[in-house]
């Protein structure tokens, strides 16, 4: 590992990217290369986290992210405790703080937290005193998703420097959009957030390296990567959209829209997809798509994050 001094103090948590220097973020991406090699071996396991207990604390349902983290932790030889709120004391009215105190009494060494409320991962860090990896808190942040997106783009272009990344869809409710808007400019990229005006909060334009547009062609023009965000169908009842058809006709990532992008631009989606709504099947399955690659990279990134936060800490 690189020495801590060259990269600033090691942040104890990955809640968002506020305390993270580009150098530390680069180290996580670099380490993911090694983790990918591990995943290609016949025996996909390293002893790095042996003896440590990692708690997957999922206060909101998520099969994919939970599975990805669980596999990542097991492949690092950690013991994994899975806590799903739906089937637990939380559904009986136990407070977050009490839940955390009970889990910490089981000698948990680190938490991976998914919660419907922005800031909940910060509360877990405060209440537990243990390293916390945010696996998605409300609309706020999903840092490992952004890291795997950055890694996937870097795999393609070698670097994020000077790259234009267009992110289209329901930006308002998207933690993926917010985390990417925070991370990618730190790595030298330029981010364009695009969606219907009702789903594109103007306040985000104040983030460094981020611009907003409601015009999808403008957003995608010259882009090196185009990301479609999942459109929650319940947004219709919120009155944000005239119709799903209207949305798809205007903002869908498809071959026509990709024609505006840099040639060879890659297509990303955080999943799960609404095929033929925010993304056409042609774009999702075409040669430019890196959507399955993202899933594969996600595991490597999560292994790398666990390594970075937990190995050699004590």
């Amino acid at each position: 590992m690189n020495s801590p001094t060259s990269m600033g103090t090691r942040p104890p948590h990955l809640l968002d990217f506020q305390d993270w220097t580009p150098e530390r973020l680069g180290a996580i991406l670099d380490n993911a290369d090694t983790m990918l090699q591990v995943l290609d071996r016949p025996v996909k396991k390293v002893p790095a986290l042996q003896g440590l207990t990692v708690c997957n604390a999922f206060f909101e349902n998520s099969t994919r992210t939970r599975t990805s983290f669980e596999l990542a932790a097991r492949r690092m030889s950690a013991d994994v405790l899975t806590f799903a709120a739906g089937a637990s004391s939380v559904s009986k009215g136990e407070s977050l703080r009490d839940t955390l105190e009970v889990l910490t009494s089981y000698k948990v060494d680190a938490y991976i937290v998914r919660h419907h409320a922005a800031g909940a991962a910060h509360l877990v860090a405060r209440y537990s005193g243990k390293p916390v990896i945010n696996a998605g808190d409300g609309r706020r942040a999903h840092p490992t998703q952004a890291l795997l997106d950055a890694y996937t783009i870097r795999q393609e272009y070698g670097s994020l420097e000077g790259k234009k990344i267009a992110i289209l869809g329901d930006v308002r409710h998207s933690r993926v959009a917010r985390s990417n808007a925070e991370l990618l400019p730190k790595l030298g990229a330029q981010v364009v957030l695009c969606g219907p005006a009702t789903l594109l909060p103007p306040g985000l334009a104040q983030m460094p390296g981020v611009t907003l547009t409601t015009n999808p062609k403008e957003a995608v023009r010259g882009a090196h990567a185009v990301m479609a965000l999942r459109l929650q169908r319940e947004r219709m009842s919120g009155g944000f959209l005239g119709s799903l058809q209207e949305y798809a006709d205007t903002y869908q990532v498809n071959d026509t829209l990709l024609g505006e992008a840099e040639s060879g631009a890659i297509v990303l989606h955080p999943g799960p997809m609404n095929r033929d709504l925010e993304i056409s099947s042609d774009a999702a399955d075409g040669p430019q798509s890196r959507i399955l690659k993202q899933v594969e990279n996600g595991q490597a990134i999560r292994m790398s994050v666990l390594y970075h936060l937990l190995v050699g800490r004590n």
Partner: protein
Amino acid sequence: MITITNIKRVGSEKTESVTIEGGLIKGWNLPEEGQVIDGQGGTVAPALIELHAHLREPGQTEKEDLSSGLAAAAAGGYGTVVSMPNTSPVVDDPAIVRTLIEKAAGLGFARLRPAAALTKGQKGEELAELTYLKEAGAAMFTDDGRTNENARTLRLGLETAGSLGMVISVHAEDASLRADGVMNEGPVSEALGLPGNPAAAEAARVARDIEIVAGLHAQGVPARLHIQHLSTARALDLVRAAKAQGLPVTCEVCPHHLTLTDEALRSFDAIYKVAPPLRTQADADHLLEGLRDGSVDCLATDHAPHTRAEKERDLLDAPSGIAYIELAFPLMYTRFGETLGLERILDLMTAAPARVMGWEPPTLDAGAKADLVVLDLTTERPVNPAGFKSKAKFTPWAGESLKGWPLLTVVDGKVAYQR
């Protein structure tokens, strides 16, 4: 009989004493009689008046009750507290008003003047029995805790309350614009990914309510509207314009909206969750200007205690409210003693709320009701939530060094608090 010695009146360096008998101020600098209390060189003022406190009784006494809330008020220098009716059950029944007043009177802390609900169950649809509620001792009518979504009901309420010579106070937020907002809408809420509550929700509702009053006023109907906890610059401008037109509209501002902004939410600590939400520094500056130029009528704290467990929830789930009646004066005096001046701050917390309510402004003259506070304007002390009388023993200002702490509060001629 009580004689308080070694005190100074505002604006005077002279050391004096005041004698209290039968609940009234008997006179100044008389021979010492009865119980003698050393005022320690403190500054004496009429006891503070709070127009907006949630004391949570009946039904929510895990958060606060009359005893803890009124003791906290007395410790904060308050002699009179208007309690909000959004309890369980709602204070929409004259019997509840009577019970609260009787119970409070026996406690010996601050005096209670309960506000009653404007509508049955605070549902915003049918008016409560305002005449009976007034007879029972209700101080004002409000559906605070909820918003008055039905404009016609509010208008009918203003007509009825006006005919009774009573004030209606409103929590002015348009519920549909506020939507699921848990903090001020703006760059901070977007960066934090928290649902925002736009300034327009308050301003739009203030505009609507002022228009209702204007319509009644033009027809000679006496309506009195008081806007609670005004938090935005644009809403204040609307009130300012209404006053310039001579409309019977008043408003209050809370110290937390003057001293905290939406930046505080970056901590994700629900201790800062309050409705209306903490706004921007520009809003806070504008409100302060309103206090200076008189377009804001008075200060109120919106003391809103909750349990620690409730405020430790995440920001979406935690209830709104900050409880700090015990430190409102020290906070105002420490932060704004120089900009506003002691006399203006005291006016905003004593005579000004009395004027809003149509009450006799309090004085310290011989023959006046003996409601007074002795303030230590010099000793700085850190805010110590563990020592609060309120059940909510936590606060955004914990540990902050403040001056202006009450040494003694006298209500109806009796000691309600002594440091």
